[in-house]
């Protein structure tokens, strides 16, 4: 095991990321090398030597974070969570009432369809006469029979 390898394992030993087998191998390497032992002592000392950061976030950091979150929230998310189930319940109720009204309508679905067909038959197209006249005129052009200027 070379020095780089031992150094990596010393780092992993500190974080508890070595397997049992690796720990045994490292212990053997430490027993055999004074350089490895010194490296390990330096690493332990390093953690102890570093002064902790004494600075703190601003006292009003939390309200500021909350304010930023509110400002960046999408409009759809501004509904209080309690509104969503209420909205769903109203929609479901409207659907149920609609279905009930439709089901109890006199004549039902079939009756409505028959009435619609009858209505369609009664209906006459106001443009139909004009289309027929235009058709006659075009067929007159196609035929060899002469026609008066008044017909145009």
């Amino acid at each position, binding site marked *: 095991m070379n020095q*780089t390898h031992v*150094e*990596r394992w010393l*780092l*992993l030993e500190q*974080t*508890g*990321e070595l397997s049992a087998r690796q720990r045994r191998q490292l212990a053997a390497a430490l027993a055999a090398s004074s350089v490895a032992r*010194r490296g390990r*002592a*330096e*690493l*332990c*000392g*390093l*953690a*102890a*030597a*570093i*002064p*902790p*950061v004494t*600075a*703190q*976030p*601003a006292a009003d*950091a*939390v309200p*500021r*974070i*909350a304010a*930023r*979150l509110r400002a*960046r929230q999408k409009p759809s998310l501004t509904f*209080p*969570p309690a509104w969503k189930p209420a909205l769903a319940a109203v929609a479901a109720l409207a659907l149920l009432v609609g279905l009930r009204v439709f089901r109890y309508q006199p004549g039902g679905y079939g009756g409505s369809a028959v009435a619609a067909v009858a209505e369609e038959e009664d209906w006459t197209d106001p443009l139909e006469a004009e289309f027929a006249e235009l058709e006659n005129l075009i067929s007159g052009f196609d035929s060899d029979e002469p026609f008066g200027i008044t017909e145009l």
Partner: protein
Amino acid sequence: MAAEDATCLAAYRRGDAEALGRLVDKYRRPLFAFLSRFAAHPGEADEWFQETWVRAIQHMNLFRQKNLPGWLFRIAHNLIVDHARRRKPDCSLDAPLPDGTATLADMVPADRPTPAAETAGRDLGRLIAAAAANLPVEQREVFWLRMDAGLSFREIARVQRCSINTALARMQYALGKLRAALGPAYRELQDLRP
């Protein structure tokens, strides 16, 4: 994610404003300490701290990891990297070399602490902090995530989106530079006990 964190988040989403306070307070020290190591002044660290929380909560739906501190440090890392890119020089020392194993900065000896820093902080800890400030961003991040925030190398690798071996190599480069920068003072570390 710890059950307590999930409970706090759920309570905040239901409108409990105090739940956010509890959550922020829980991770305040390690997160703010980490950000402070990269900020030019306390106001900048404070701004990053708030922004980290805002982004974390805003994008919680995208959160796949089960580790809230890891997610927070990942966002903090992005903020620091973005900031470093904005003030990046034309020729970057952090650019990887053609063989991809190291950066140009790894080949350059680290600066020694300035005389001002040496006189201001005689103790070893301050010398270490001053020397660490001269490390490339990636190495500095690994160093402080490990030493300050107490993250494991697996977690650090997740934060930096690199392999665990890369995280370990960055730490080794950082320690090598600190050793060179501090000279005999670094060897005093072996006499210290945690």
